[in-house]
Structure formats: structure tokens, C-alpha cells
């Protein structure tokens, strides 16, 4: 029996629509196990680059009360060789696994993506949108042509679904359209937004990296808007991400056009958020009298 909450997105068959967002844990087998214990329907790894990356020294996060989080972890990750181990533990736990892939050139992305495919990962999420790791993100993702190149290179070579994770940028609809043309099966929208915090008593930027990515409640209305606009123009398969902290914030992304959602920052406050979201979504399905959550995808465009 297929449950009311099960969804298909970008070739993945998920028990329910709540996945974790890349970069919240997800870099070691132990992390994968912990994420699985949170109840996510699929596990997304930390962005993996070909070579290990140390990341930035602390401070790497600043919490802004009520508003969200600023982070500059700096794509710290153990490098591509970890991928098979991550896949293995996720398979053992019966969870689909999406390998988030980072790089500074199309061939670097392909390098990790190929290992992921070989290792038996269920999908690849190309991180085209990190706003604070120079050369590894939003510079690519805000340019339709560079994004096209990366996605094309990977989607042409690997058979598992390729998902493109995009960030806030001026030409988001155009970028989305190009990466879909290049072969992306789905889009994750959005990544963090470039921002900074200064400590006024010392006048110093708090993050060691100066700039970081803003996530959490602050970016939620922006994420909903991006999902809504991209869905309206292109009707692609979208995974919504940004400021999901409860069932309402998750539902907004789904109604705007997302087939699934990812949760990042909220895990800092609420480790049981998955169940909170699922209970709310189940009530919403009843409220609208529809058969399944899939009927509510993009519903705001139809009322």
C-alpha cells in the first residue's frame, strides 16, 4: 500500500517528503546513521569534493536568535573516498541516499558523481550554490552557462538521477531552465544566502571566513518565492529547502511547487522535526480532501 505521504521526486521513491538538507552532518558513516535516526525518508550527504577539505577554522557558525543561522563551514569533507562507506551504511539502514557533489570544474563534479554511481547511490545532488566557498558554488550556479556545463557533463555520464541544487540569484528561472535542459531530473531550491554578522563591540566580522550563508526562518519566504516562480514557469520536479521549521513552513514549499522538502538549520532546535512535519501534512491532506500529498504539490497555482 502506498501511503498518503509517499512521493516520487527526481526518480526517487520516498516514504514521505522530508529529507535532510546537505551539510547538516552527512560526512561520515556515523553521521548518516544519526540522520537516519531522525526519520528522514532519504539521506543527503554533506557536499563531497574530490579531495578532502579541512573547511574553515571556528567560528564557523553564528546563531541569530529567531532569524536563523549564518554558517561558513567551508565545505569541510573527507573527500571522494568516503562515498562508498556512506552509501553502504545508508543501504544497510534501508534509506535511499543522495550524494551531494561539489567541485570547481565540471570534471571535478564528474569525478565524485562517478564514484557515487559505482557505489550504488540513488541520486546525485550537484551543489551549484554554496555562497561562501570561493569557486565552489554560487559563482557557477548564478551563471546559466556554467551551470549547464556542469550538469550536462554529469548527467551525460551517470545513469542515476542528477539533481541540481541552486541558490538565490537574479536569473533563477533561466538557470533552472538551462540545468533541466542539460539533463537534471530535479532541482533543489534553495541554498543559503550570502550574508555576514559583525560583532559591534570589537568591530570584527564574526565568522573566520567573514562571509557565510544565511539559513533558517529568515530565508523561508525567499525560498517559497523561488520555488513558486520556478514551478510556475517550468513545472519541474522540485525539492524545496530553506527555513523549514515545522509543518506549516514545509507545507508552504509544497503548495508552491515542491514535491519534497529538506530540513537543515531547524535540526539545531528540534531533532524530532520530521514527525512534527508529517503529522501536520497528514492533517493538511484531510483538510483539503485530497488523496495524497502529491495532489498538493503546486496546489497554490490551482486554487
Amino acid at each position, binding site marked *: 500500500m502506498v501511503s498518503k505521504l509517499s512521493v516520487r521526486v527526481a526518480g526517487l521513491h520516498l516514504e514521505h517528503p522530508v529529507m535532510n538538507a546537505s551539510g547538516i552532518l552527512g560526512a*561520515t558513516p556515523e553521521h548518516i546513521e544519526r540522520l537516519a535516526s531522525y526519520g528522514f525518508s532519504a539521506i543527503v550527504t554533506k557536499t563531497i569534493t574530490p579531495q578532502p577539505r579541512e573547511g574553515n577554522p*571556528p567560528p564557523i557558525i553564528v546563531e541569530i536568535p529567531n532569524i536563523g543561522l549564518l554558517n561558513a563551514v567551508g565545505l569541510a569533507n573527507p573527500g571522494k573516498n568516503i562515498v562508498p562507506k556512506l552509501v553502504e551504511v545508508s543501504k544497510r539502514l534501508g534509506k535511499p541516499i543522495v550524494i551531494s557533489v561539489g567541485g570547481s570544474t565540471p570534471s571535478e563534479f564528474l569525478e565524485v558523481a562517478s564514484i557515487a554511481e559505482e557505489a550504488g547511490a540513488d541520486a546525485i545532488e550537484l551543489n551549484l550554490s554554496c555562497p561562501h566557498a570561493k569557486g565552489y558554488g554560487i559563482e557557477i550556479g548564478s551563471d546559466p552557462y556554467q551551470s549547464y556545463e556542469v550538469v550536462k557533463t554529469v548527467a551525460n555520464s551517470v545513469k542515476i538521477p542528477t539533481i541540481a541544487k541552486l541558490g538565490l540569484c537574479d536569473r533563477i528561472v533561466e538557470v533552472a531552465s538551462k540545468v533541466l535542459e542539460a539533463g537534471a531530473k530535479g532541482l533543489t531550491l534553495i541554498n543559503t544566502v550570502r550574508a555576514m554578522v559583525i560583532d559591534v563591540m570589537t568591530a570584527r566580522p564574526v565568522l573566520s571566513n567573514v562571509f557565510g550563508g544565511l539559513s533558517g526562518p529568515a530565508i523561508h519566504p525567499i525560498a517559497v518565492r523561488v520555488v513558486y516562480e520556478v514551478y510556475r514557469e517550468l513545472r519541474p520536479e522540485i525539492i524545496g529547502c530553506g527555513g523549514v521549521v515545522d509543518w506549516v513552513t514545509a507545507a508552504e514549499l509544497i503548495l508552491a511547487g515542491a514535491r519534497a522538502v529538506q530540513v537543515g538549520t531547524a535540526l539545531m532546535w528540534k531533532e524530532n522535526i520530521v514527525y512534527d512535519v508529517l503529522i501536520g501534512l497528514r492533517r493538511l491532506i484531510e483538510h483539503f480532501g485530497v488523496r495524497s500529498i502529491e495532489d498538493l504539490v503546486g496546489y497554490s497555482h490551482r486554487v
Partner: protein
Amino acid sequence: MLANGIYLAKLRLVEPFESYPSPAQFVMVWVPGVKEMPMSISHYSCDGELTIVFRVRGVGTQKLASIGIGSVLGIRGPLGKGIAIRPEWKRVAILAGGIGIAPTPLLVSALTVHGCETHLFWGAKTRSELFDLDKIFVDKPDRIEISTDDGSYGFRGTVLELFKSVANVHSYDAVIAIGPNPMLRAVCEDMELKRIDPMVVMETIVKCGRGICGSCYIRGSTKLLCIDGPAFRCSEVMHHLRSLD
């Protein structure tokens, strides 16, 4: 300065902590423009004075040791779970190795408040790393025993050897060990034979302190030191401690 390379700092918080910290909880101390480091809470007074005790290891602690009175630091915390003191504890042994002494004042105070007798066993490499414990303890342990690896003060040997030679582990309701990982491993392995599962207050690399970056993970377990620890049972961290060589 308390001893060779060991410092005590009293920090006045702009905003007091929301709740009184539990023993073994820690803070992230930001030395502006340099770095942010995890530091145990040695003592805290309700009006917002926080005491830390630290040993100079690299650039961060060096800088921390050299900044003057009146400097502004950033403090995040209290972080971690802290040790929950059990009502059935009547007598507790605390084994501290080196700078592992840092969190013990808060721990001894909390145990004392709960009417528990505290026996402190402190081991250091050599005499110059020792200092007068009165300088850091608000509530005094009921018994203090000291060792140095080279015998330059007190018992010659490790703190575990000291403990085994002068005390009977079975006379304690709990054993809490704090110190470098090799020491903790030795304690855990020794006690395992006696079918005792002590508590250990550990260190791993803490970056975010909030359970999201994953740098502090305990190998072979789903635990994160920054939110589940830093105090664990030996049984929870044995794999981690053994895998460190």
C-alpha cells in the same frame, strides 16, 4: 597564570546564562580575529561571572593567555549536556589528568550541593604543571590526592595508578574521569575488567557546538560530543578511544 602554561580567566558576561550550567558543560570562547575554542566551565556565579582554566597549546590559547583585562571576547553557551547527578550517589571519585582539572570545580560544587562526598585524584606530568587548587575550587573536595608522572610531587605515576594504589574503586558510587584520551582509555579498560562503567569527560574537535557540522562525532556511534556529551559512559566511547592510535 596558575602554573607553567596554565591560566585562569574570569569573564564577565554581558548577558548572564539563561540557566545555571551543569557540570561538564562548556562554552565556545571567541578571541576576536583569532579563533573560537571550546572551553569547560570551571565556575559560574549567577551574576554572570564565568571562570575558565586553560593550558596554552597553540595560537588560540596563546592569544587568550596574552590579552589584557578589559578585552572583549565572545562566549556561546552553555553547550553540551552536562552530567546529571544521581540522588543515589553518596561518594564520587573524580580522576583528573592535567588540564582535565578545569571542569572539576563546577562538578565538585554540584556534587557537594547534592550532599555527595567528593574525592579528587589529580595527576600531572610534572610539578611545574601543578598549582594550588584553592585558587580554583569554590567548594573543596573532601579528599585530594596528587600524582606526577616523574614523581616531582606527590605520588609517582599516572593518576590511574595513584587511584588504584590509595583508593578502593568499590567504595565509590561513581567514577568520573576527565583528561586526555589515552588516560580515559586506560581508565575505561581498567574498570572494564572490574565491570564498572565510569563516566568520562572527553574532547573531540568541536567547531559548531550545535550538532550540525559533525566534526565532534564519536567514532563507531551516532553520538555527537557537542550536544550529547562531553560526558559519556566508557561503554559508549570505547570504540572511539581505541580507534585513536
